[in-house]
């Protein structure tokens, strides 16, 4: 009969072996899942957040293939048309346009959309609670009331220009949001639709001649792509720019962003993706939203525009300088 210490050692070894072999990370191979990422304007912090969440999964080894339309609507269409859906377990889409086109085409695989402000109105889902189809995701909808209250700490707005790409469906929903708080905050909205690149100079002339107090940029990929040209002119004429996409404060010199944190949005979409890969139906996962605004302000732009940033705002904001 073996002595007790030896027996204990054996039991301990067996326990270690057992725990090692049942561990999903180290013991067994993580199940490989393939995700297609369909993007209109390249990767943003939202995709970074999505990737980070997926890579932290203990159950799955997720391989991501990126399809970037490079801001070309036709290319986006051909990417979606040519996709071999059987190769992927899940599809991730960014923005209203890419999400609408993907969900229209792919019915047999789950689709996780991200940065879609109004998924119900865009007909991606039946309701915020349940999609009623193969899609779920995260929305970048923020409370416009909070956004305008924050803005009132920085400036007084009586005339607000709203510049947007008229072929993109998303900005129209954002404009409706702004219109809903217009009376409460006592400002007038000047509509500035842009049809194509050639229409930008005329749009800028309209903004300048209307003597607006600020220009609002929705989360619109076309406008984002041309933001440098637009903002250079606006800053020269000392017209503040208010944006929804946080990167535009750093990359394009916008004064202030009042949107959600895109990385957090990506993380929320990632959580939904993992739930779906684990077997949950997309229709059973409500569309997620971030609770608070993420405020970024550009100190250099504020100085150029002669705008005084109150110090209490610093405790809530990311400062770019």
């Amino acid at each position, binding site marked *: 009969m073996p002595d007790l210490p030896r027996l204990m050692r054996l039991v301990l070894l067996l326990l270690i072996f057992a725990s090692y072999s049942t561990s999903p990370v180290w013991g067994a191979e993580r199940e490989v899942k393939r995700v297609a990422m369909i993007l209109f304007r390249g990767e943003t912090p939202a995709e970074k957040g999505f990737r980070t969440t997926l890579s932290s999964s203990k159950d799955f080894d997720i391989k991501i293939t990126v399809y970037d339309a490079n801001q070309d609507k036709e290319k986006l269409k051909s990417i979606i048309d040519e996709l071999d859906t059987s190769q992927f377990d899940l599809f991730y889409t960014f923005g209203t346009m890419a999400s609408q086109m993907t969900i229209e085409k792919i019915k047999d695989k789950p689709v996780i959309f991200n940065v879609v402000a109004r998924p119900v109105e865009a007909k991606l889902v039946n309701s915020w609670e349940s999609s009623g189809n193969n899609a779920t995701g995260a929305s970048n909808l923020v409370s416009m009331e*909070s956004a305008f*209250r*924050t803005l*009132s*700490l*920085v400036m*007084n707005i*009586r*005339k607000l220009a709203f510049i947007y790409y008229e072929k993109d469906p998303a900005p129209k929903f954002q404009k409706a949001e702004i219109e809903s708080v217009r*009376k409460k905050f*006592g400002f*007038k909205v000047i509509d500035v639709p842009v049809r194509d690149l050639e229409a930008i100079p005329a749009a800028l002339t309209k903004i300048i001649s209307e003597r607006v107090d600020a220009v609002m940029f929705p989360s619109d990929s076309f406008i984002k792509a041309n933001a440098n040209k637009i903002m250079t002119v606006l800053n020269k004429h000392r017209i503040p720019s208010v944006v929804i996409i946080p990167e535009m404060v750093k990359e394009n010199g916008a004064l202030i962003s009042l949107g959600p944190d895109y990385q957090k949005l990506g993380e929320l979409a990632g959580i939904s993706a993992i739930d779906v890969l684990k077997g949950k139906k997309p229709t059973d996962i409500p569309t997620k939203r971030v*609770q*608070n*605004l993420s405020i970024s302000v550009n100190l250099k732009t504020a100085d150029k525009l002669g705008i*005084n*940033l*109150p*110090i*209490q*705002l*610093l*405790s*809530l904001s990311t*400062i770019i*300088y």
Partner: protein
Amino acid sequence: MPEFISSLVTPLEIHMMLRGFIPTVIIIFIGIVIGRWDSSRHQLTLMKLTHYIFLPCLAFSALHKHAFDPAEIFRIALAVFITITVMTLVSVTVLKEKLQGGSRNILATVYMSSGTLFPPLAFVLFGNEGLAKAIYFHLFVILAYHTAGLWMVEGKADLKSFFKTPFIYLMLLGIGAKLFPFSLPEGIEEFAWLSEKGIDLTAMGGLPLLLISFGYPLGLLQRSDARGGLSGGLLRVIAGPLIALLVVYLYRKTGLISMERGYDALEYLDHRTTEAILVLGAAMPTSSLAMRLSGDRVNAGRAETGTLLVSAAVAIISVPTVLLLILMFIFSD
């Protein structure tokens, strides 16, 4: 920077605080230089301009954009009355003055520059929200001055002159415009906006003029004037903010001002801004407008001119210190 400070406040916050404070000091110095070299003695014109035009425009401009909140007004009023009452008791004890029938130095010690130095500083540091709260603060300070303050030195209150203050009526107009917004036809609305812009521009233009008004009488004082005002001046800029900090602490302890973060970060921020305004307002030096010119000298006693000079000189150090405390203990997480 010591670790204790750097753990509570970022260099950027200090930088932003100094960006607001240093230009304010520079403009006051311009006022001092003007006061010293202005042989035509334009102080009365300057006072009339600020009293009848710039301060009223500032009150309208700040309040018609600021949400009307009776609870906020109550908090500011109560804090001002507590701070002034405690400050009066401390000053009477330290300066060995009588509660009634004493010298005007007691007023110079208890009452701060809430109408000249404070509004511009509140605006450059805390924006329009800070300015609106500073306007309410000033209202209750002048109410206390015209009632309890004048009763102490003259034996009777003077509410008549309080109600003659034009800024009160523009303040009410600003609150009314915020409470009862009305729609106008397109062309008239454009005109109304332009008028509003005109008032806003006048108000903003008045900010440096208010600072110059504060600096002007300081330019008439001599270093020797400081002798009689050491105790009063130090009490004004050191005891004032300490009492206000105590009031803020009591507000938090009693739940009179919420510390709940909740989902609405802006509401939390608004409460902290109120606290900051209460402390900063109490840290202001003596109001220099009380020192009216008389010939080449200020028309005030030696003690109160000393209190003004000492409080203004010490404020160059004490006000940024108070601002640092505000950043560290009010706005810090």
